[in-house]
C-alpha cells in the first residue's frame, strides 16, 4: 500500500510555478527523503501535501484517499508535520502543556492530561517541562515539543521539514535518534525534506533528488555509500556533500 502518492504534481506560488510535474510513490512505513538545495522546491512539495500551499494541480493521495487543497480535520489525524525552525514553530506565549493540548481540544479528545504527559515521555522530556514557556527551553527541547505536538493525534505519516538543520550537531544526533526510534516503535511513515545527505544516509530508505522544481533522480539511500547516481546534478550534490572523499571515482 502506498502512504503518499503524487501524480504529475505542479505547484505555484502567486501564479508562478515552483514545482513541475512531480510524481512519487512513498510506501507505507517507508522513510523517504526529498533532497535538494534552496529553491529546488522540496519544501513546497511538503507544504502542498500538508495543505499549506493550495495552488497545485495534479493528484495527491494519502493512504489511498485523494487530498483536498486546504487543511482538513480528518487529514490532520493521519498526517502531521514537524517544522524546521524550533524557535518559530512554538507559540511564544503558550506553555508546552497548552501547545500539546491544542490538537486534542480541536478534535474533542478527552483524557488530555494523561495524553500530554505520555507524549512528553515519548519524546524524552521530563514532566518538569510541561508548564514551561518556549523561551525557557533550548533548541533541542523545543524541537522535541514540536515532535510531540505532531504525535498528539497519533498520525501514521509525518512530514519532516529540515527537522534538524537549525540545531547543533550534538543535538541533531539526539533528535535523529529520537525520530528513528519513534518510527520503529509506532510504525510511522516519514517524508523528510533536507539538504543534508549524511542525515539521509542515517534516517531514510529512499530519496528523490530535486533541482529547479523537478525530481531529477530517485535512488535508494544505499546509493550514498557507493556514489551510484546517474544524474549530473545528483552527482554534483553528492560530491559537494562529502561524497568525493569516500567514494572511488570509478563510476564516471
Amino acid at each position, binding site marked *: 500500500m502506498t502512504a503518499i502518492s503524487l501524480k504529475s504534481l505542479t505547484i505555484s506560488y502567486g501564479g508562478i510555478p515552483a514545482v513541475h510535474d512531480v510524481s512519487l510513490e512513498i510506501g507505507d512505513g517507508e522513510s523517504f527523503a526529498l533532497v535538494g*538545495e*534552496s529553491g529546488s522546491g522540496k519544501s513546497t512539495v511538503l507544504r502542498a501535501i500538508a495543505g499549506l500551499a493550495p495552488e497545485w494541480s495534479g493528484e495527491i493521495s494519502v493512504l489511498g484517499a485523494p487530498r483536498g487543497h486546504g487543511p482538513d480535520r480528518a487529514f490532520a489525524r493521519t498526517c502531521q508535520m514537524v517544522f524546521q525552525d524550533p524557535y518559530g514553530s512554538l507559540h511564544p506565549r503558550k506553555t508546552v502543556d497548552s501547545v500539546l493540548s491544542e490538537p486534542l481540544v480541536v478534535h474533542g479528545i478527552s483524557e488530555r492530561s494523561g495524553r500530554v504527559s505520555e507524549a512528553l515521555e515519548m519524546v524524552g522530556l521530563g514532566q518538569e517541562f510541561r508548564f514551561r514557556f518556549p523561551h525557557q527551553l533550548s*533548541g533541542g527541547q523545543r524541537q522535541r515539543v514540536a515532535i510531540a505536538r505532531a504525535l498528539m493525534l497519533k498520525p501514521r505519516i509525518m512530514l519532516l521539514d529540515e527537522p534538524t538543520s537549525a540545531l*547543533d*550537531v*550534538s*543535538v*541533531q*544526533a*539526539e533528535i*535523529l*535518534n529520537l525520530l*528513528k526510534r519513534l518510527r520503529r516503535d509506532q510504525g510511522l511513515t516519514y517524508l523528510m525534506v533536507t*539538504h*543534508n*545527505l*549524511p*542525515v539521509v*544516509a*542515517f534516517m531514510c530508505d529512499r530519496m528523490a533528488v530535486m533541482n529547479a522544481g523537478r525530481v531529477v533522480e530517485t535512488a535508494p539511500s544505499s546509493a*550514498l*555509500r557507493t556514489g551510484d547516481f546517474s544524474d549530473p546534478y545528483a552527482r*554534483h*550534490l*553528492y560530491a*559537494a*556533500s*562529502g*561524497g568525493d572523499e*569516500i*567514494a572511488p571515482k570509478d563510476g564516471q
Partner: protein
Amino acid sequence: MTPLLEIDNLRVSFPTTQGRIEVVKGVSFTLGRERLGIVGESGSGKSMTGRAILRLIRSPGEVTAERMMFDGTDLLSRSERAMRPLRGARMSMIMQDPKFSLNPVMTVGAQIAEAVRAHETVPRRALANRVREMLEAVRINDPDRVARMYPHEVSGGMGQRVMIAMMLIPRPDLLIADEPTSALDVSVQAQVLDLIDELIVNNGMGLLLISHDLNLVARYCDRILVMNSGEVVESCAAADLHAATHPYTRGLLAAIPKINETRDVLPVLDRSAWSGT
C-alpha cells in the same frame, strides 16, 4: 618574527539579572600568517571571541584580557577612534549572511569602492579598476555588470563573494570569517571557501575561521581550537583532529552522521563526561 595576533586570557562578560555571566572564559592563542579554525556549538563563545578581537562588543558587554596584540600594537588600549583605521584596513570580518551585511540601497560596486575610500584616497579611474580586479579575483564573470547591481539582485553565493571582495580589497593582514558559508547551499559552500583559501594563501594573510562545522574547519585550516562554554577544550593541528583526545571533541566528531552511514544509533554527547560545564 612576532605573530600577527596574540591573545592571552581573553574574557567577555555580559550582565544578566543573576549577575555578570562570562561567555568567553580565558581564551589564549596566537595566530601567524596561517589559517586557524575555531569550532564550537552555539553558545560556546566562538563568535564572541571573533568580535572581541575587533572590539565589536558593545556595552554593557565587557572585554578583558592580559594581552591582545595585533602585529605589535596593543588592541586593548586603543580608543574607539584609533580602532577605526585598523578595522577594515588591516583586520576584516566576513559575517554569516550577506543579506544583512550589504547596504540594500547601494550598488555592489559602490559598496566595494567605499571599502577602499574609507581608508585611502585613490583616483577614481584607479579605484574602478581595482574594484573590477577584485570582482574578478572572487570569480565574478561579468564584473562590470555585477558592479552595477543592487544586493537584492544577486544570489546568496554571489552576495557572499561580493562580501569577500569588499573585505579583501583594502588588503588586510587578518581576515576573521564568522560562519562565512552557513547561509549558503552545500554546492556553493566549497566554491566560497576555496576562494577565501586561495586569496589568503596568495596574499600571505592570517585567517581566523569560526564555524560550527568540524569537517569544514578541518578541511580549510592548519590548526583548530575547539571551544565549549567559553573555554578552549582542545587545540590541535587540523590533520590530527581525528585523533582528538578531549571527550567533547570526540563526542562531537562521533555525533555527525556520515554520508556512508551504517550506524543504527548516533552516539550522543554525554555532557557529564568532562568537568567545567
